[in-house]
């Protein structure tokens, strides 16, 4: 049923730390690997070795450059997948009832046995989080690895989404936003976790931790913590007129001749 639940018992989601992400695409790869062989139809590739390869991915990494006037530019790697919005427009537009938001944990899913592949939900999502699989003709999206997180056949440390499990930098965190003491709630509170495009009114669950401001060694009055250690040992300007040490002695000795 494509009516949204009034509230959900849990609000499972991700915190993505833009300060830490190095843009290695490991989460993208592990996401594709896990999800192509588990929940629903495989994530197909079309023309994989041809001139214009195209494939279905549930998570993609953009890389942005942010530049403030007078400062050096800063690179920000930006992973993007479904944000499991509380007021998910993708769910309410669905005519078939294939798209739904779970009352128990807030995960937004597609029931592929009902999806007719009209693509309207992908149009309704502001974030580009839904992709119509070109071979299966059904809508694919992040499931928050619903088939891992409750899976008792997996060792306990693997019962988190594949992207979080694999991130070598520790830039991704999984937890329950409904619990104010959870890891994700605390990170969001401490670091000012932000919503993407809040003006769309989707109330995304996932939060992004903003990159910490970078020290700008290029600008004026900017402190470079390494600078004192890299100072020249001999300051030529003050020593030029009266060189000390051996040179000073030589200088004086030669002058006397």
């Amino acid at each position, binding site marked *: 049923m494509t009516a949204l639940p009034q509230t959900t018992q849990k609000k499972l989601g991700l915190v993505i730390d833009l300060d830490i992400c190095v843009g290695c695409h490991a989460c993208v790869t592990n996401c594709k690997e896990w999800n192509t062989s588990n929940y629903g139809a495989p994530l197909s590739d079309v023309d994989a070795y041809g001139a214009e390869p195209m494939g279905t991915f549930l998570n993609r990494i953009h890389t942005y450059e942010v530049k403030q006037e007078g400062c050096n530019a800063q690179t920000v790697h930006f992973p993007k997948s479904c944000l499991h919005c509380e007021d998910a427009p993708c769910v309410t537009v669905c005519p078939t009832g294939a798209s739904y938001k779970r009352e128990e944990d807030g995960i937004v899913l597609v029931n592929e046995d009902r999806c007719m592949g009209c693509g309207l939900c992908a*149009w309704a999502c502001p974030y580009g989080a839904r992709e119509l699989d070109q071979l299966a003709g059904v809508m694919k999206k992040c499931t928050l690895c619903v088939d891992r997180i409750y899976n008792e056949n997996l060792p306990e440390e693997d019962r988190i989404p594949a992207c979080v499990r694999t991130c070598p930098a520790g830039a991704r965190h999984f937890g329950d936003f409904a619990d104010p003491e959870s890891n994700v709630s605390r990170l969001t509170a401490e670091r000012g976790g932000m919503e993407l495009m809040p003006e769309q009114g989707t109330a995304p669950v996932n939060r992004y931790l903003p*990159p910490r401001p970078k020290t700008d060694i290029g600008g004026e009055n900017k402190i470079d913590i390494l600078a004192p250690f890299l100072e020249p040992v001999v300051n030529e300007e003050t020593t030029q007129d009266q060189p000390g040490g051996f040179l000073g002695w030589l200088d004086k000795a030669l002058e006397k001749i």
Partner: protein
Amino acid sequence: MHPAPSVIIFTSLSGLGFGLLFWLGIGYPEVYGMSAFGMFFVAYALAVGGLLASTAHLGNPKNAIHAFSQWRTSWLSREGVASIVTLLVMAVYAIGMIFLGQRFQILGWIGAALSLFTVFTTSMIYAQLKTVPRWNMRLTSVMFLTYAVAGGALLAGQISIAVVLLLVLTLVQFAVWQAGDKRFREAGHTIETATGLGNLGKVRLLEPPHTSPNYLMKEMVFTVGRKHSRKLRMIAGVSLGLLPVILLYALPFNPISAALAVAFHMLGLFAARWLFFAEAEHVVGLYYDKR
């Protein structure tokens, strides 16, 4: 947005078909027997043909039957239900006029109202989308309804009212272009709000996530062809209403000029509908630094 032929044909033809059904429902023209058959045949061919064209857009049409289930929340589902109910009600009305020489007036009025409601639901599929600011306004529904009523009047041969409506339609279409051009800016979405990085400075895309286009870009970041939009607007703006009105008024009425008027109107309709999709900017384009 990608101007897929299936959705252009769907919205254009079914709009015309339900527009014609509206006029037939209120008894203009009041025809019986074979001429009623002709009129209803055209209306059903357009409405059903349009609906069938829309299924060409589906990735998995075998599940299309489920599309009638979510009318409580989904405009697309409401559109499906409304069009089937309308076609059924009008079928009974049509049988009366074709075979029984009877006009079930109440049924006709209900069918006419349902026809307009169906066109309204079609418009809401687009107008509801906050992600496409150009569509996300009341005028979108006004435009779809005016197209249906004006085009329907033309097909129904209600020349004197059609002339007025076609001119109104032309004005509405220009108003939609005017308002639409400002919508994205008014909605206030930028690459900075999309990424949340605005407080750190000016944002630009350094590297896209993939080297060749993906589904999102093909479907929603359609930027080709916008360069022709000015020319197409002129073509659409003139042939939608002005040319048909001139043909209907300036020339003595004859079947050829009437057919030409319809042909011009449809040319304008298709051009305008192509622009409706091609010019619509989806906010996801912001993540790709494109609109």
